[in-house]
């Protein structure tokens, strides 16, 4: 507004001066942008002549003019300006960035298109949205911002936790459902820092992703990093400080009530041993949580001339997590350099490097280590509150009177070491050459690598976990490397009213992964941590999953045709043919075609002059994409190494692992997309609607139907028989509600609905999985069933508490709940589905659906003079959660909540839905623990202030912005657990999960690192 006023004043001045008109003379002037930076290279032309010039490096120009001439100033990305010359001698022009024009170019695979010409379904996310609040990973900033994009931390607020992105639902069962990330053209790149990202494009439908062929089925995220711009040196410094706290904790019994609870259990179980209450009263949750903090600093320098442009940035991110002993630090460098070598040749290099260090505590344990005794969060809920941190002899306490022995959570959190260091780099060179008018050749060559070191140590002070083995040390190094070379020709030509663009190229990609692993027990002393691995008296044999080398090569050719006719009718067709070494012998090559049509209805005569409808475009597309889904060597016959004890020593031995499977092939997604883009009232209101249907076929399924007696170590064979369907609807609405000089208000609304359906399974049989920790000793906790969404909870249908007089009709209790054939009052009842009076496997059924009906994001941006305010709500509706934490806490062999303690059935409290304490049910999976997981969450509330330029100009600062924000300030949910954004993967999972777990194991909650509430203070400085 400030600048607009300036400009108006300037124009008025010009107009006044024009009263004193004279004949031809030399006019000089300067052209700057809105921030007063001179712009070189602006075209200055006298209208209706060929006379003109361009601004020099300082934005200056001189030109012979006469009064009455109209001077036109133009440059790509700026609003064209015309000035009528009266008799002024000098002229200062302020060019205004053309926001609409900038947004109009979107990056697509191997090229860029004007947004209005895009025929596929593409979401764009703006820089401001990515940096609205500090995030560990830029992908996190996508949540609620782009329709059809589901983003979730794999482990709540854990520092350094991996982020999972899913586009348009689950497309696989056994292969990854994560999208392909392409950074500055590098396929499979690491996500750059949010502050370094210029734009992010999410390619959703097959016509957009089929150019990535066998890697495109899960969608593609195209990330473009910031580049230097012509102009003087720009220095940006951004810093954020954030304080974090847990957003929630459970209300657990204190020591006295706990002893009472345990004694009640023993009475109910007929056990006459009194609970031996300890002398302490410890709040274990309090012991392991603290206030966390995040600091994030970014320093970026950029600039350039017509010939060379540069951008270089360094970012530091440091986090002290809210769980004691969980920290994360990261330093990242990025530099982009482009040089226009000749008129036709351009070369450039992107360099990225980074290092992160994470010291973690284990949460979300899969339960395999000493009955979940490594999982700090669930231990803090389970552990007896009458125990202190230390025993009388100064050693750490363990629980020894209930359940299986475990170390105390404080000891586990503080004594275990788990450090991960990751170094990564990427270097990508490119050269682009304009061979002829309209014909361009581009080639890129890049290498990226990641080296990870992980060290873990379990000291003997943890008596249960590592006490008698005298310390356990683990060191692991993994290295992955990717080489990518791509070359392609682009040809662009106008044919009459049509514009034809052709693309053809070749791609070669090679990935290598290597891992070395060492584990030993019996170290000389705890003080060496895992560095003392070499002192271990006994080394543990590694497995083929711990020590491995594998390679994968993909070769591809691809092509695309775009034909735009009369700016009304658009056609896009692509094809890619991939050959991959990891594909099985009989299916080495695959072809993935797609086609799309677009119709710009608003450019038709009947709408051309409409004031209400400023834009209307219909899009339709169809295409096939693939999911590589086969790991290297997965289709080959192999043996497994196992270790044998022979005459007192250990020897390596072999056993058959699997048969060859030469017919295994990739998974194919066939997608149709229908889209409609609206712009109303000169695009003050824009609306995009997309409907899609994705049929995924040849899903690789684990055939557990291979009999065990065949004797293969891997008793699961893989077959391409599964199929799945995803149908969805996406809305993206932006409205500029109020726009005036001092005040603006705009709103973004994002709505995504996805209906997933499993359409084919092996022999049509239900497929079961386990979302419980392994020490629960449960098998099937969720089911995939034809015609249903993935991951339906599977268990007994809870029917309340038995009162005296036995089980009501239609219900029954497990055998252990009965005495002399009659169910004991207070014991849990379940629906007896097969009516045999017993509760058996046959009475299990689908008891909940973890998939939401829809998810949404709602952003309001207000600006008032120099102030701005961002309010961002995000939510999920209709998903259910299986509260595995409650299963553990209501089981009797751990602490419990006051909620259960107070509401459990007793002879004097019979009007309740909670069974008596110490009931015979043993960690049952039933609808008793299924809850509504819908939520509405205030993700971000941010208030910013830009200091007036007058104030800061004097101290040499171009821009100074201060902001304060809060994240996850409140959540509206009925869920009784810690947080409704859950992601526990059960026995097979762990923090990193595996594909199958993350695709199918949904809506389980157990021992996750808590989601945090945070307050942030940010400073953005530009010199």
């Amino acid at each position, binding site marked *: 507004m400030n600048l607009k006023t300036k400009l108006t004043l300037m124009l008025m001045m010009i107009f006044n001066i024009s009263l004193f008109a004279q004949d031809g003379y030399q006019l000089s002037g300067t052209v700057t942008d809105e921030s007063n930076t001179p712009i070189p290279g602006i075209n200055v032309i006298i209208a209706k002549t060929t006379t003109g010039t361009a601004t020099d490096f300082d934005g200056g120009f001189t030109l012979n003019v006469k009064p009455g001439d109209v001077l036109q100033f133009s440059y790509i990305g700026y609003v064209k300006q015309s000035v009528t010359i009266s008799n002024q001698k000098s002229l200062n022009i302020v060019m205004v960035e053309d926001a609409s024009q900038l947004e109009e170019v979107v990056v697509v695979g191997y090229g860029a298109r004007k947004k209005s010409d895009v025929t596929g379904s593409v979401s764009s996310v703006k820089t401001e949205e990515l940096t609205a609040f500090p995030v560990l990973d830029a992908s996190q900033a996508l949540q609620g911002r782009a329709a059809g994009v589901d983003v979730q931390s794999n482990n709540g607020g854990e520092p350094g936790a991996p982020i999972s992105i899913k586009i348009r639902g689950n497309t696989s069962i056994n292969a990854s459902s994560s999208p392909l990330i392409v950074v500055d053209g590098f396929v499979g790149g690491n996500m750059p820092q949010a502050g370094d990202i210029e734009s992010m494009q999410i390619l959703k439908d097959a016509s957009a992703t089929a150019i990535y062929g066998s890697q495109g089925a899960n969608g593609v995220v195209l990330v473009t990093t910031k580049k230097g711009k012509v102009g003087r040196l720009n220095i940006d410094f951004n810093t954020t400080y954030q304080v974090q706290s847990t957003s929630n904790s459970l209300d657990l019994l204190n020591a006295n009530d706990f002893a009472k609870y345990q004694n009640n259990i023993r009475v109910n*179980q007929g056990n006459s041993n009194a609970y031996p209450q300890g002398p302490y009263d410890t709040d274990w949750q309090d012991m392991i949580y603290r206030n966390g903090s995040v600091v994030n600093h970014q320093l970026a320098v950029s600039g350039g001339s017509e010939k060379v442009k540069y951008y270089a940035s360094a970012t530091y991110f440091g986090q002290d997590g809210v769980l004691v002993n969980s920290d994360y630090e990261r330093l990242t460098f990025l530099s982009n350099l482009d040089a226009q070598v000749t008129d036709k040749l351009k070369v450039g290099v992107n360099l990225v490097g980074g290092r992160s260090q994470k010291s973690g505590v284990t949460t979300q344990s899969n339960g395999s280590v000493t009955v979940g005794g490594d999982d700090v969060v669930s231990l803090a809920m389970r552990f007896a509150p009458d125990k202190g941190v230390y025993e009388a002899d100064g050693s750490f306490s363990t629980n020894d009177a209930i359940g299986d022995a475990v170390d105390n959570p404080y000891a586990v959190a503080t004594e275990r070491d788990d450090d991960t260091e990751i170094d990564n780099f990427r270097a990508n060179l490119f*050269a682009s050459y304009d061979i002829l008018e309209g014909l361009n*050749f581009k080639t890129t060559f890049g290498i990226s690598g990641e080296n990870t070191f992980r060290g873990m140590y379990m000291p003997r002070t943890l008596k249960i976990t590592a006490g*008698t083995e005298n310390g356990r040390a683990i060191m692991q190094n993994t290295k992955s490397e990717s080489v990518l070379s791509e070359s392609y020709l682009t040809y662009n030509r106008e044919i009459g009213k049509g514009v034809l663009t052709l693309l053809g190229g070749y791609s070669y990609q090679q990935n290598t992964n290597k891992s070395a692993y060492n584990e030993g027990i*019996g170290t000389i002393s705890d003080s060496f941590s895992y560095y003392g691995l070499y002192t271990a008296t006994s080394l543990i044999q590694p497995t083929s999953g711990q020590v491995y080398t594998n390679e994968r090569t993909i070769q591809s050719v691809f092509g695309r045709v775009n034909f735009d006719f009369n700016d009304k009718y658009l056609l896009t067709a692509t094809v890619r043919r991939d050959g991959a070494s990891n594909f099985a012998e009989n299916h080495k090559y695959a072809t993935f075609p797609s086609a799309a049509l677009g119709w710009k209805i608003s450019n038709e005569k009947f709408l051309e002059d409409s004031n209400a409808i400023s834009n209307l475009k219909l899009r339709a597309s169809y295409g096939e994409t693939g999911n590589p889904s086969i790991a290297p*060597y997965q289709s080959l016959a192999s043996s497994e190494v196992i270790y044998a004890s022979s005459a007192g020593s250990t020897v390596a031995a072999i056993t058959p692992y699997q048969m060859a499977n030469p017919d295994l092939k990739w998974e194919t997604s066939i997608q149709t997309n229908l889209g409609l883009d609206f712009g109303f009232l000169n695009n003050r209101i824009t609306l995009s609607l997309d409907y899609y249907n994705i049929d995924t076929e040849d899903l690789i399924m684990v055939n557990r139907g291979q009999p065990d007696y065949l004797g293969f170590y891997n008793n699961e064979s893989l077959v391409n028989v599964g199929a799945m369907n995803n149908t969805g609807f996406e809305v993206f609405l932006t409205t500029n509600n109020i726009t005036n000089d001092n005040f603006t208000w705009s709103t973004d609304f994002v709505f995504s609905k996805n209906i997933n359906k499993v359409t084919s399974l092996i022999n049509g049989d239900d497929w079961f999985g386990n979302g419980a920790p392994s020490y629960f000793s449960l098998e099937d906790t969720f089911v995939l069933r034809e015609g249903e969404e993935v991951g339906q909870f599977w268990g007994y249908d809870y029917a309340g508490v038995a009162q005296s007089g036995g089980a009501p009709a239609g219900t029954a209790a497990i055998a252990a709940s009965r005495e002399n054939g009659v169910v004991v009052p207070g014991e849990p009842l379940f629906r007896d589905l097969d009516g045999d009076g017993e509760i058996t496997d046959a009475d299990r059924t689908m008891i909940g659906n973890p998939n939401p009906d829809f998810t949404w994001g709602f952003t309001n941006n207000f600006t008032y003079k120099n102030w701005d305010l961002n309010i961002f709500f995000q939510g999920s509706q209709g998903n259910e959660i299986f509260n595995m934490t409650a299963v553990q806490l209501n089981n009797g062999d751990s602490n419990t909540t006051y909620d259960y303690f107070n509401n459990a059935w007793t002879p004097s409290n019979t009007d309740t839905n909670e069974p008596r304490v110490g009931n015979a049910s043993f960690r049952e999976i039933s609808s008793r623990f299924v809850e509504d997981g819908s939520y509405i969450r205030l993700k971000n509330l941010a208030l910013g202030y830009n200091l007036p330029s007058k104030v800061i100009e004097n101290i040499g600062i171009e821009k100074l912005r201060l902001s304060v924000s809060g994240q996850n300030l409140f959540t509206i949910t009925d869920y009784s657990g810690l947080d409704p954004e859950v992601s526990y993967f059960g026995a097979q999972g762990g923090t990193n999960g595996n594909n199958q777990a993350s695709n199918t194991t949904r809506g389980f909650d157990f021992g996750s690192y808590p989601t945090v509430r945070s307050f942030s203070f940010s400073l953005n400085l530009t010199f």
Partner: protein
Amino acid sequence: MKNTKYIMWLLVMGLSIMGCSDLEEEPVGLLSPDGFFNTPGDIQIAVDGALTHAINEQIWGRKLSVALMLRSDMVNVQSSQARRVEMDMHTITGNNEMVYDPWRRIYLGIAAANNAIEGADDVVAADDLKNPITAQAYFIRAWYYFHLVRLFGDVPYIAETIDGSNSDFYRNISCTPEADVYKNIISDLEYAEQWLDDTTAAPGIPSKGAASAYLALVHLTRATSDARESKDFNTASLYAQKVINSGVYSLDDNFQTLFNASESANSPEMIFTLDYNNVEADDNAYDQVAPMTGVRSDDDDQGWSVAVPVMAVYDSFEDGDYRKRVSFQTEATIGGTTVDYTNFTISGHEHAGNMPYIAKYTRFPGDYARGNKRATSIKYPMMRYAEVLLIAAECAAEAGDNANALKYINEVRARARKGGVSTNGGYVPETVPASAVPADLTGTVTVADVIEERRVELAFEGKRWYDIKRRDLGDQVFGASGYEGLKPDWNAAVDYDTPIPQDEIQSNPNLTN
């Protein structure tokens, strides 16, 4: 044009590294079965794979060993896990982990043995170089099928490696009749007996004597089965005599030594053992029998109090019998206090119980046994000389040869009265004196006498359930007068055979037993 130079460079840069690959997978770092077998040493590697599955947690590490204890009349479940209760109460279904885990692992062992036996064909070497190695695979294949046939009766019998050419056939096969399985077991053991070395570096490596002893036990077992052949007792006796007369084996003077991980490998009594050596790998050692049988909250054992004998079992051992001392833990040190079994619940743990616990595996698990005495270096006796003597005694009793029956059974009983060095609750060594009461039986030795002697001598060694089955003792021992009292669900008509895992029947409906 000078620009062509650039184009050339770009093309070179772009294309040079692509090369042209045929996309054949070269499995770097993958252990491929093709071309593996070249030397007798390679056969040994495959044989070791076959042998080591037996010590897995799913077989002797815990699942099968504990299941056999629980199904007998000597061991009760002190905790409440359904799969163990089913074993104890004879309500086993094909969905029981203690059924399908041993099934799976035994078949892994069989496939590994088949791999070794077929692989040996590829090795060009003299018979006397390679056959003694291959014979170990025959031996262990027989050992696995012998467990299967005793547990399940009819089972799928597979004696070749499986690949694309025969996998469809085997996916749909029916169970092989028990009689055929026995025949195959016997022929494998005969091959093993022919080629195995007379002595081996450790009793965990099959020897000629081990094959003979198992031929005795297999015939003895078949003799009372539906698959019996007329001369089975006689043949069993001949093989037992062969072992006795070989002079290679003798009874250990100290019964405790057999259950002392540091000493048992050198005992002259051990014929075949499953050896653990404290190695923890993803898929081998790691036995958990000691914690499964150990006293809850014992300072040293930190046992889990799962498989625990009832008081009547303890009382059934004669007081002067040293085996009572070696087999039972009657004292424990809990929270620094040494108490006798009447006070084992002072820990307050819900699963603690006031009765003597099994002591055979907790007392001397070896130097390196870890938390809860997991991962021991115990050599679990599968076949020891005392059993061979008792097989000989049983065959003699069957044949009416009372003199030999008396001789063999009394030899075993005499050793059990010798005493020796043992420990109890505080794990302090103490010498138990020889018993003053003579051990000799007189008069007529009945088959029941021998079975009773086996019960005491081989207590908690996984033998009792098979004895109950082969001698059809179920109605007697699971009745009201049994040690554990009446087991109301016991049904002799169906409970002797273990149900085939439900998942296996689902994968191949032709399997029924």
